[in-house]
C-alpha cells in the first residue's frame, strides 16, 4: 500500500512539472489553433541545455532560465518557418523537431547526460528544508506551476495577449484591426516552446539526467493533459480554471500511468496507451455530438425512420 502511495506521490510531482509543458502545448494547440510538433524537440533541448549547464557547474536556477531561452529560440525558428516562409504549421514543427535532434546531441555531446552529484533545484530545497526529495519536488513544482499560471493569466489579458488570442480565433479580423499576425504567432510559439523547454529542464533536474529521447511523444502527452482537463472541467470555463485544468489533466495522466504500470503494463507500451487515450478523448465529443443529432432526429421524426435506416 505504501508502495502505491509513494508511486502516486511521485506521479503527482511528475504531473506537475510535465504540466508546464502541457501549458505550452495549450498555447499553440488551443489558443493559436495549430499543432506545434516542435515540442518533442524543444523539450529535449530544454533538458540538454539544463544538464550541460549544471554539469558545467552553473547555478541550477540559472540553468533552467537558460533552457527556457533555448526553447524560445526553437519556437522562433518554427514561427519563422510558418509565418515568413508560409510552410504549413505541422511540417514546420516537424522540420524544427528533426533538426533539434541533431542539435540536442551536439549540445550534450552524447545521447544521455547524467547530472551525477551536481546540485539541482530540488536537491537544494530538500537540503534546506529537510523534506524528502519527492516532497521537495512536489512543493517546488507546485509553486512554480502556480507562478506560471498567474503569469500566463496576466499575459493573455494584456494588449499583446489579447492580440494573440484574436489571431488564433480569427486571423482576418486581427489583421483588419492592425495586428501583425505574423508577430503574434511567432511570440505565441516562442512562449509555448519556452515553457516546454522550462518543463524539460525541470524534468531533467528531477530525474537526474537528460536524454536525447526524453521529448519523444511529448506533444501527445501535452494533448492528453489538455483533453483530460477538458473532459474533467469542460472547455467553457474561465481562463484561470482552464489553465489549472490542464495541469490537473497532466497529473491525472501521470496517475493513470502509475496505476497501469503497477498493474503490470510494460513501459514500452505506454506510448501506445497515450496515443489511444488522446485519440479516444478527441473522438468522443465528435461521436457524442453526432449521436445526439441522430437521436434528436429520431425523436422529432418518429420511430418509423428506424425501419428505413
Amino acid at each position, binding site marked *: 500500500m505504501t508502495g502505491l502511495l509513494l508511486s502516486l506521490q511521485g506521479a503527482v510531482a511528475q504531473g506537475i512539472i510535465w504540466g508546464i509543458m502541457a501549458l505550452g502545448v495549450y498555447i499553440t494547440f488551443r489558443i493559436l489553433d495549430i499543432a506545434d510538433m516542435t515540442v518533442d524537440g524543444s523539450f529535449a533541448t530544454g533538458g540538454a541545455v539544463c544538464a550541460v549547464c549544471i554539469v558545467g557547474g552553473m547555478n541550477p536556477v540559472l540553468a533552467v532560465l537558460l533552457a527556457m531561452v533555448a526553447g524560445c529560440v526553437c519556437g522562433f525558428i518554427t514561427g519563422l518557418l510558418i509565418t515568413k516562409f508560409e510552410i504549413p504549421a505541422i511540417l514546420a514543427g516537424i522540420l524544427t523537431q528533426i533538426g533539434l535532434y541533431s542539435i540536442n546531441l551536439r549540445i550534450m555531446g552524447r545521447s544521455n547526460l547524467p547530472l551525477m552529484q551536481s546540485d539541482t533545484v530540488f536537491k537544494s530545497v530538500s537540503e534546506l528544508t529537510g523534506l524528502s526529495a519527492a516532497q521537495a519536488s512536489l512543493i517546488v513544482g507546485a509553486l512554480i506551476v502556480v507562478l506560471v499560471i498567474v503569469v500566463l493569466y496576466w499575459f493573455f*489579458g*494584456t494588449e499583446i*495577449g*489579447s492580440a494573440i488570442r484574436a489571431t488564433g*480565433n480569427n486571423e482576418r*479580423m*486581427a489583421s*483588419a484591426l*492592425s*495586428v501583425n499576425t505574423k508577430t503574434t504567432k511567432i511570440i505565441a510559439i516562442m512562449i509555448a516552446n519556452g515553457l516546454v523547454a522550462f518543463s524539460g529542464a525541470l524534468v531533467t533536474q528531477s530525474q537526474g539526467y537528460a536524454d536525447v529521447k526524453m521529448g519523444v511523444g511529448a506533444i501527445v502527452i501535452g494533448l492528453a493533459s489538455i483533453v483530460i482537463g477538458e473532459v474533467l472541467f469542460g472547455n467553457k470555463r474561465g481562463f484561470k480554471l482552464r489553465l489549472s485544468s490542464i495541469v490537473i489533466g497532466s497529473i491525472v495522466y501521470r496517475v493513470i500511468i502509475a496505476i497501469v504500470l503497477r498493474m503490470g503494463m510494460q513501459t514500452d507500451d505506454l506510448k501506445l496507451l497515450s496515443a489511444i487515450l488522446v485519440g479516444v478523448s478527441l473522438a468522443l465529443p465528435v461521436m457524442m455530438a453526432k449521436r445526439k443529432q441522430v437521436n434528436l432526429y429520431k425523436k422529432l421524426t418518429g420511430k418509423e425512420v428506424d425501419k428505413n435506416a
Partner: protein
Amino acid sequence: MLKISKVSKTFNLGTVNEKKAIDQIDLTLEEGDFVTVIGGNGAGKSTVLNLIAGVYPIDCGTIELAGENISLYPEYKRSRLIGRVFQDPMMGTAADMGIAENLAMANRRGKKRGLRWGITPNEKEVLKQRLERFDLGLENRLDAKVGLLSGGQRQALTLLMATLQKPKILLLDEHTAALDPKTAKKVLTLTDEIIKEENLTAFMVTHNMKDAITYGNRLIMMNDGKIIFDIKGEEKKNLTVKDLLEKFEIATGEELNDDAVLLVKD
C-alpha cells in the same frame, strides 16, 4: 483622401486561369466622400476594395491614403488607417472572445499594443456607451461571447468596431448582403448615420442598385475591371435604376441582364 493611380491586378498570371481583374484604374476620393460601387459579378468591385485593404498585392500603380503611399504596405499596416466590414458577418469579429474584448481590440486599431491591460474598467464603460447608441440590446451583455450573437448583431458590432477609431477610409464589402432584408435595412441605416455623423470617407460595394442610388454622394459602376461610370452630387441624387441600366448599355454595348449579373433593382 484616397488616390488610386494606374492600378492593375491579374490573378493566376501565366496560367490558363489568368484573369485580368483590375485594368489600369484611376480613382480619387475626397475627404467625406461616400462612394457606392456597383457592377456585375466579376466586374472587379470587391477586388478594388481588397486591393485598397491590402488583402492581395497590386501588380502596378500606386495607392495613396491620407497622403501616405500604402502601395506596398502589408494588410495589418494599412489597417491602421482603414476600417473594414466584411460580407461574411462571421469575419469581422472573434467568436470566442467577449463583446467588450472585441471592442477593446478594435479600440486599439492603429495603436501600439504593449503589456498594458487589454481592456480597462474605464474603457469598458466608454465602450458600453458607444454600444448603447447602436440599440442592439448588447450593452448589458458585454462579457457574452460574440459567437452567441446573430449575424445582424455581429455585423452591426463589426461596423462599430470599424469606426471606433476614426478610419481614414471605411471599406464596406457588401456588408448587408448576407443579412435578411429587415436587418440589412437596419445595418445600412446605421452605416449611413455613422458616416454622416463622423464625416467619414467611405467606399461601399453593393449588389443593390437602389441602395447604391439612395446612399452616398457618389456612385461608381464597374465592368470588366474598369470604372465605366462615375457620377456625383446633384446628378447622382436624380439618378434612377432605369438610368443606371441605360448607362450600362451605353458604356458596354451590352444589354444588362439582371439575372446574369445579379444586380438587384430594389
